[in-house]
């Protein structure tokens, strides 16, 4: 799109304006607290906008006073009035504002942490360096394992049970609500209620080591019927390979011992150290939110694991012939 002419601005000011527009554009997107898609996120965004507005007003007043004091009111001022300003604006006003904000935050807490007894969806999430073990627990007690992905029905409350076996992580889907730490030796809870459908992104919000910034996950909010269909698919065993090359990929997967760490339900692979791969080809992303989900990304992940995610537990298999990597990638990509 051609740039709109802004004749009254100098070159430098145009750049500043462009930077401002870009900065504001960054507030939108799948991982923004400012475009909420959940009950909790909406309340948090309300608070943020009030704080932002208040901060702008205070900033303008302070700068205005500074300009007045240095440009216009340089003479002597009445001591009593000056003292009143310092005590009133410097001590009383901040105390009142901070108390009001504290009360607002305290009243918000029950909304962000509602009782989860009647939650429609129950999900257990374990944060590990640097991926997410996800287990959906159905009302009849079935446990459906998957990884690095959360899908939720719109308009229904989802209750998350959060744990960690290694270090402190923090589970955060900014578009849907607040974050919650995952602490070794403790179980924490989080409730999220999406208000609109869409694809979002979650992230680990507590530094947890080398690849902390690469510990993300895809989130999709679906209509309830579509969610039920998706969960039924996730509960089913893996589909058979659709092509001879994919079938060879499955043989290689089992022969190279991938099943020692990964499970593909419906095959002898039943490892639990790494992510469950039964439906990995149908996920939103690969490698915990960092790669697109296609055969080329699979081959890259298997061959250059540590270039993609430094210090990941999985050993790289870059020594494999290109044809084997391709077959493995095709097999995994077909596990939808």
């Amino acid at each position, binding site marked *: 799109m051609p740039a709109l002419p802004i004749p009254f601005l100098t070159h430098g000011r145009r750049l500043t304006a462009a930077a401002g527009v870009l900065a504001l554009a960054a507030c939108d997107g799948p991982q923004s607290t400012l475009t909420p898609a959940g009950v909790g996120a909406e309340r948090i965004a309300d608070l943020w906008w009030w704080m932002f507005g208040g901060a702008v007003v205070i900033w303008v007043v302070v700068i205005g006073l500074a300009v007045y004091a240095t440009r216009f009111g340089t003479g002597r001022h009445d001591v009593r009035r000056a003292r009143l300003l310092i005590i009133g604006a410097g001590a009383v006003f901040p*105390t009142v504002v*901070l*108390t009001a904000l*504290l*009360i607002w935050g*305290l*009243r918000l*807490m*029950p909304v962000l*942490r509602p*009782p989860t007894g009647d939650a429609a969806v129950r999900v257990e999430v374990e944060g590990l360096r640097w991926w997410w073990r996800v287990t959906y627990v159905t009302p009849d007690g079935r446990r459906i394992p998957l990884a690095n992905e959360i899908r939720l029905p719109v308009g229904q409350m989802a209750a998350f049970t959060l744990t960690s076996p290694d270090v402190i992580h923090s589970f955060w889907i900014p578009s849907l609500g607040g974050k919650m730490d995952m602490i070794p030796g403790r179980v924490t809870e989080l409730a999220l209620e999406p208000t609109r459908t869409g694809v979002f992104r979650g992230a680990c919000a507590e530094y947890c080591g080398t690849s902390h910034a690469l510990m993300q996950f895809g989130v999709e909010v679906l209509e309830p019927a579509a969610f039920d269909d998706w969960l039924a698919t996730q509960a089913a065993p893996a589909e058979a390979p659709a092509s001879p090359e994919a079938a060879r990929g499955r043989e290689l997967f089992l022969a190279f011992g991938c099943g020692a760490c990964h499970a593909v339900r419906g095959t002898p692979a039943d490892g639990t150290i790494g992510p469950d791969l039964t439906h990995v080809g149908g996920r939103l992303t690969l490698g915990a939110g960092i790669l697109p989900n296609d055969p080329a990304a699979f081959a890259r992940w298997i061959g250059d694991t540590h270039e993609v995610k430094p210090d990941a537990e999985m050993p790289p298999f870059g020594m494999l012939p290109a044809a084997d990597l391709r077959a493995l990638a095709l097999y995994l990509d077909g596990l939808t």
Partner: protein
Amino acid sequence: MADPQRLDLPHDARDPPPRARDSLWILPLAPTVWALHFLASYVTGAVWCAKVAGYGGPLGDARVLVGIYTAVALAIIALVGMAGWRRHSYGDATAPHDFATAADRHRFLGFATVLLAALSFVATLLVALPAVFTGSCR
């Protein structure tokens, strides 16, 4: 020592304050009460939720206890503040009380005590606020 002949000193520089040697102990008294109130409130809440109500249970009587702690703490802090005010108001000099005289040291100690008591008063109220708005251990 102040020179009693200097004209720029307040006139009461020649009059020693009630106590020639002031104690500093009044200064940290109010923040100490604030700290003890904080500790007592959160220890009470933690023990109540861990041993009595359980996870998700009501805060119940723990809120009453925090209320009692708060009333006692605020009363002590107010008394300390009033004692500070008396020292600050000694004679007819005004803040900032920065002459090197026994009387100004007395007033300065009082003024600093008043400021710390005011800070501690507000802080103690803020520590107690969660007990007002939080009804459960969740």
